[in-house]
């Protein structure tokens, strides 16, 4: 499959850490490592306790890497407007979130949007993604 041009941006910008995030976030992800991933959806995995976006990201040298991005639970996602078919394999998406502390290609997603700007989703995660279940407007 031909991959669209996609960029991977890792920022080391300062961000305010949550006062005390849910352990599954704070033990695993670093709120001070924001990440923006643009790539192609391989699968929206609709499982509890967290749904996952599996995607392929091509960097500037053309190297393709697989990233896994944690979302909220399917129930939280559904209550904020997601459906299990909201994203389709091959969709070009942009995920904003926080990178994993262990350095793996893993992130906690805050927002997910289609690259053409048609839809934006709150990722509904229980980490520091804001109010779970709240639609992004």
């Amino acid at each position: 499959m031909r991959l669209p041009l996609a960029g991977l941006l890792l920022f080391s910008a300062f961000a305010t850490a949550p006062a005390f995030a849910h352990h599954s976030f704070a033990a695993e992800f670093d709120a001070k490592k924001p990440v923006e991933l643009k790539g192609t959806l391989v699968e929206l995995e609709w499982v509890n306790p967290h749904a996952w976006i599996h995607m392929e990201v091509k960097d500037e040298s053309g190297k393709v890497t697989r990233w896994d991005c944690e979302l909220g639970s399917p129930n939280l996602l559904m209550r904020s407007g997601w459906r299990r078919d909201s994203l389709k394999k091959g969709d070009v998406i942009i995920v904003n979130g926080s990178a994993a502390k262990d350095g793996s290609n893993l992130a906690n997603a805050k927002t997910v949007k289609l690259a053409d700007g048609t839809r934006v989703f709150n990722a509904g995660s229980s980490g520091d993604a804001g109010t779970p279940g709240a639609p992004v407007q």
Partner: protein
Amino acid sequence: MCVDKVRFNSLLAPAFCLAFCCLTPAPARAQWLDYPTRGIPRNPDGKANLSAPAPKLPDGKPDLSGLWLGDQWSPAGRRPNPPGNARPSPPEMFPWAQKVFEERRASQIKDDPEARCMPQGVPKASTLPYPFELINASGKLVMLYEMYSLRREIFTDGRELPKEFISPSWMGYSVGKWEGDEFVVTTAGINDQVWNVDLAGHPHSDVLRVTERFRRVDFGHMDIQVTIDDPKTYTKPWIMPVMRYTFLPDTDLLEFVCEKNIDPQHMVGK
């Protein structure tokens, strides 16, 4: 139904019906997600009237039934604390408990069994970003939690809590009684696989006794005041910040089976 119109053999009929259903367009209304709640007060615009008076049971006590979501997780946000209920001081722990508390905080509670899909226990299960439902039943109030599909039975048939628990459980054993307009629930017998009584990570021992005072303020709002009494862990009973809930109309609990958590393998703590 298709079975009436076509004579299949009995094995093929279900398969045909399944295929038929899959090809039929889904109804516009999402299954159970936004089904209107019957018999609740509504404003002229059709929305639930959350400030209507609290409903009553036939015996005159407040009716607590319904779906409830913690205010901090709802788009409307948390209501301010009631007067006189400012955030209490941190509880005073005995040295062993302080050590455990600090160790777990230092590792961001990464080894909490909850992260491996185990139940959160009482009262922590009531502090999470999912609704729970209260259902009146004969001799008990049933509490169904959406998260991890947990449930509690709060017995109101006059029984006392056992003196000893031969099998401490994840969600403990609960009895409830009315004190005026407050439903007072006492819970004990919570096992040691439940690490914390709250999201901050406060530990407990086998003598933990949790008191939850439920008060339905009006139709749309309920408070639960929790007291933690654990004389092996804390120097004296302590009161948590009041937990505030808003009625969640026009939806139902959804199933939540914690089937696949890949987080623990990536949890590094600090």
